[in-house]
């Protein structure tokens, strides 16, 4: 059985477990709510997946999200007549620009990605403080259209969920059907071999960072309009959730292994936990321990799955 299938079963088992304590949880409405709530995490996990596939990591995603979100909110407050679609494009471009800073530093200066993004994580937060002066952009300063987009329902599903679905589809296409997508795997799987096949390792990593930046930018707008508030600390610490979603989804931190389905399932796994804990009535101190334990269990499963596949190859070698 594939790893994604195991994770999907674990997800269903978890939903079943929660609905024993809180029957309403497994209703279609409630599950769609969970998906909608997890949309932003899914989009971010897709971006992180591209970066992790190339044997890098992007810790600046949440700060990028917060900075872009603040830019969008301030733009909207200053020019409420600006069309929201244009704002969404601006968000994507700002995010991509911030991502390209990471990309250039990793590509041209050859600094380890964890160091680069740890630096930009703090820098981006600092910039939010500089441009906003520490002030909040509040709901009454945002235009109604700005706040309405993620909530607008199309075919019974909020736009926020649709954006996530579109991102999933696009990422699936990029990863499985384009040379760029194959390059992500090649660069992470074996950088030396990738060079011999004519792939520019640095440029591929750069592209992955720009992609994750652009997705963070989109999430910046979505976050700010969903919660109708922008301030310096929004999505603080969210980068760790994104990395956790990828790890749970079986995307190897060592690069080269992973799938879109894995990233989505990993994000949903965390999303279900996050949405289940408030309704099952557990002390907040236990909640944190449970979230952590769930992550470790998922990773242990993944590690076992990886090791088993290694053994099978050996056994075949012995028998022949």
């Amino acid at each position, binding site marked *: 059985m594939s790893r994604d299938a195991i994770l999907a079963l674990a997800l269903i088992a978890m939903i079943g477990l929660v609905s024993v304590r809180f029957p309403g949880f497994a209703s279609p409405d409630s599950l769609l709510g969970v998906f909608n709530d997890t949309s932003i995490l899914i989009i971010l996990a897709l971006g992180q997946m591209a970066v992790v596939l190339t044997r890098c990591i992007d810790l600046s995603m949440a700060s990028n999200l917060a900075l872009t979100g603040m830019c969008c909110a301030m733009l909207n407050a200053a020019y409420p007549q600006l069309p929201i679609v244009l704002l969404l494009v601006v968000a994507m471009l700002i995010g991509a620009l911030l991502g390209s800073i990471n990309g250039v530093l990793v590509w041209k200066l050859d600094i380890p990605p964890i160091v680069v993004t740890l630096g930009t994580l703090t820098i981006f937060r600092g910039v939010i403080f500089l441009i906003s002066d520490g002030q909040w952009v509040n709901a009454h300063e945002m235009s109604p259209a700005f706040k309405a987009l993620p909530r607008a329902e199309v075919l019974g599903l909020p736009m926020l969920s649709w954006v996530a679905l579109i991102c999933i589809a696009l990422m699936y296409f990029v990863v499985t059907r384009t040379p760029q997508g194959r390059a992500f795997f090649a660069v992470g799987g074996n950088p030396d071999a990738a060079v011999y096949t004519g792939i520019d390792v640095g440029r591929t990593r750069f592209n992955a960072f720009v992609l994750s930046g652009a997705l963070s930018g989109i999430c910046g707008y979505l976050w700010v309009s969903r919660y109708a508030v922008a301030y310096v600390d929004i999505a603080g610490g969210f980068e760790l959730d994104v990395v956790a979603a990828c790890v749970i989804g079986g995307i190897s931190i060592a690069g080269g292994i992973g799938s879109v389905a894995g990233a989505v399932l990993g994000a949903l796994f965390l999303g279900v936990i996050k949405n289940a804990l408030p309704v099952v*009535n557990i002390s907040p101190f236990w909640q944190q321990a449970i979230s952590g334990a769930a992550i470790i269990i998922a990773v242990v499963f993944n590690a076992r799955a990886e090791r088993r596949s290694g053994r099978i190859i050996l056994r075949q070698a012995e028998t022949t």
Partner: protein
Amino acid sequence: MMKKSLKVLSAAVVAGTLAIAPAQAEDMRIALVVKALGIGFFEAAAKGAEEAAAELGGVEIIYTGPTDTTAEGQIEVINSLIAQKVDAIAVSANDQDALVPALKKAMTRGITVISWDSGVAPEGRQMHLNPSSNPLIGNMIVKMAADHLPDGGDVAVLSASATATNQNIWIEEMNKVVGNYPGINVVATVYGDDLSDKSYREAQGLMSSHPDLKAIIAPTSVGIVAAAQAVSDAGKAGEILVTGLGLPSEMAAHVESGASKSFAIWNPIDLGYAATMISYNLAKGDAEATAGGEIGMGRLGAVTLGESLDGAMADPFVYDSSNIADFKDIF
């Protein structure tokens, strides 16, 4: 002749200055030193100070502060006020210890020094005025819910993190007095960790696990905004009441949507007014800052000082649809 007329002239000048001098001496100069200029909250406090000055008469308010929220900037401002020989300094401090030497110097020169809003260590001031007190806050947050629920009902608390000291004290104080509001039943206390997304999710959780919920009390500014948003997104604005502590600018849209009918926080105008009144009474010698003593605050009554010479001004001020428009651009 010429000399004589000069003498007469100079005598007239002297007489003139003498005639003006007593009027100047009567004008008491009270300096309101804020964390930084250009902050709506403090501009509003200055408005209150002017109100007090007009009421008292013969009081000049010097509204001043550094351009950024640094202790160094405030020390410079305080030193220049000492040089100007003002009668009183009322300061909202950027650092509770760094200002102490400068303020001590002011006190040795006979200047009355008090702190308000953000305090100074006891040795650096004669008294400190808190905007409110923990018991008053704890009472107010449940009172606001009870006022809109004449028949009582289930209410839940959405706090910051489980280890947040302020919130825990307020909730504890609230639970002490909840019995005074018949029918009000606190069914849960959940923690949003002052994160928008977690607070939003916890508010959703409260709504689904307590179908009879009538109100969410969030004594934290991130939490109250997230809860109000979650309630209106669920289409339950007006059905489930969101209340607690928040800022008018952050809550304006949610009062408009009906998700929140009322919430509380300090009134900066009253705070500036009270700080000026207290400074005046202390500088005039009408009152003395002693533990257990009382100092008049004009229309706000009197403040009673505690062991460390600090006191609470009043109940948190309640904001609702009637006054939010006036305050949403202030802070």
